[in-house]
């Protein structure tokens, strides 16, 4: 099958490339329908990754969050038209200890391996999961990010001590919002506190028990466990505040991606017996759990629908560029493309 792949070749420049795809009986062919932009995609689009990284990874189709319709299943297990979430992590081996998203041999879409900006995406059978028909399609576009939140909170549950009294989330952006909605489902008895830099964004977290601006946190405030969802240059300040406000022996999950190394007050980490655990991406098991939560909790789906920010139909390469540019000035929420290229 001749497939048209829309690749970023340089900053702000996409080109179409025809790729001859081989479809085996173990593959599924999916027509992408709704694609959601991640900060990682924007760092490629704007050329803000290191030049050596750009040289190594481009040309490459961006986007690793999206849903599409099955157009061909050689085994007939999925009917044509079935809406599926596409799993961007593609492992080539299994390991009894290391999860699929940490295996060095795994390929991850839109990170050195073509993402979902294609006419058709050919995926291995175990890389698609059916999305219930009554789910909002635009919200479904970022189920991958929900699965990343599930993965982070699963790591928290596996690592933390028995104190579930208060869970603090640092970050008032998309990842913070998604993780916060999941805390309400996975830790229903815990008090949820959000720490952010923008009051107008914190106002969206109406379901949280408390919200604080990061320059106005009471000195004696303590959280049992913490999740860092800031990333970038904000990571350092967030981690410093977490160390300051977490109880001894607490666990902090680090989820925000920083481009440059950040300083950490290890003296305090040691003195208080803290655990800092990093998590990244997700695997099939996290997608399954995310879909299970969303299926059982209409209120979570509703909260996540409120996160849909910019939406637009794209049909040409110019539309794609305009969409990415529009997302750069989008203040709140996820940018979701209706893919019609």
């Amino acid at each position, binding site marked *: *099958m*001749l497939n*048209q792949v829309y690749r970023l070749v340089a900053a702000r420049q996409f080109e179409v490339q025809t*790729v*001859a795809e081989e479809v085996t009986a173990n593959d599924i062919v999916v027509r992408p329908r709704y694609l959601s932009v991640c900060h990682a995609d924007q760092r490629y689009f704007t050329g803000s990754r290191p030049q050596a990284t750009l040289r190594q990874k481009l040309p490459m189709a961006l986007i690793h969050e999206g849903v599409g319709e099955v*157009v061909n299943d050689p085994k007939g297990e999925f009917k044509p038209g079935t809406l599926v979430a596409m799993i961007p992590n593609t492992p080539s081996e299994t390991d009894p200890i290391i999860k699929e998203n940490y295996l060095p041999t795994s390929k991850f879409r839109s990170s050195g391996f073509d993402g979902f900006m294609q006419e058709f995406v050919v995926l291995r059978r175990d890389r698609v999961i059916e999305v219930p028909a009554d789910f909002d399609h635009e919200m479904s576009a970022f189920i991958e990010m929900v699965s990343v939140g599930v993965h982070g909170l699963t790591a928290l549950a596996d690592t933390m001590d028995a104190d579930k009294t208060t869970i603090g989330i640092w970050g008032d952006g998309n990842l913070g919002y998604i993780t916060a909605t999941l805390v309400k489902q996975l830790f229903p008895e815990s008090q949820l506190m959000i720490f952010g830099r923008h009051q107008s964004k914190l106002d969206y977290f109406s379901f949280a028990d408390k919200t604080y601006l990061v320059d106005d946190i009471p000195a004696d405030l303590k959280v049992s466990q913490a999740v860092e969802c800031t990333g970038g240059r904000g990571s350092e300040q967030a981690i410093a505040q977490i160390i300051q406000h977490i109880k001894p022996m607490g666990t902090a999950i680090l989820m925000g991606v920083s481009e440059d190394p950040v300083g950490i007050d290890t003296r305090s980490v040691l003195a208080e017996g803290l655990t800092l655990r990093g998590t990244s991406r997700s695997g099939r098991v996290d997608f399954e759990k995310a879909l299970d939560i969303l299926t059982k909790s209409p209120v979570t789906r509703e909260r996540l629908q409120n996160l849909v920010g910019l939406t637009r139909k794209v049909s040409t390469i110019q539309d794609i560029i305009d969409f990415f540019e529009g997302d750069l000035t989008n203040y709140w929420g996820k940018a979701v493309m209706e893919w*019609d290229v």
Partner: protein
Amino acid sequence: MIYAQILAGGKGTRMGNVPMPKQFLSLADKPILIHTIEKFVLESRFDAILVVCPADWLSHTQDLVSKYVSDERVHVVTGGSERNETLMKGIEYIRDNYGLHDDDVVITHDAVRPFITSRIINDNIEAVLANPAVDTVVPAIDTIVQGSEEKIDDIPVRSTMYQGQTPQSFNIKTLIESYEALSDAQKETLSDSCKICLLAGQPVKMVRGENFNFKITTPYDLRVATALVETRS
């Protein structure tokens, strides 16, 4: 009903000394025709997909389809001696096997345009369900010059000029009525199927094609097409 008709009737006269019609030549390890069929079988709204080929190449085409395509909607049909006759042979097959209904439509496509996209197919289906005829076009890049006897007669304004591609899509009853209204001379000379409807006074809707949806007609085109296709590593 929504039908697809892949026109594979060409004899390859423009492909130099190559003895095999161009639609059967290989591109990225498969016959060009097969690449084209593969795109159409991914559209579930098609009730039947006809591949109309020269009589001499019927069994060859059937063998290729059996080898590469496993979709019961695909049927190989014998075409005619020129383009519009081939088109109407496909329509006859539809009439004889499925009957004709007022809202039946057909999306016709050149077998030698394998870079067709699902977006173009979808736009044709959407447009032909609302219009009697549809043409796929791209804005002209070069200035179009009209001339005769080595002299320019006119240079039309480029912004109103388009290059016609395929698919061309039709309400089947409109197409039949328009074709029957043509004189024999017109039937022989018309190189474009949408003009059948234009001559009958029917509006023809334009949908956007892609520059890369080009027709592989000459050895040069085949070299370009081969250079364009990357193999997934």
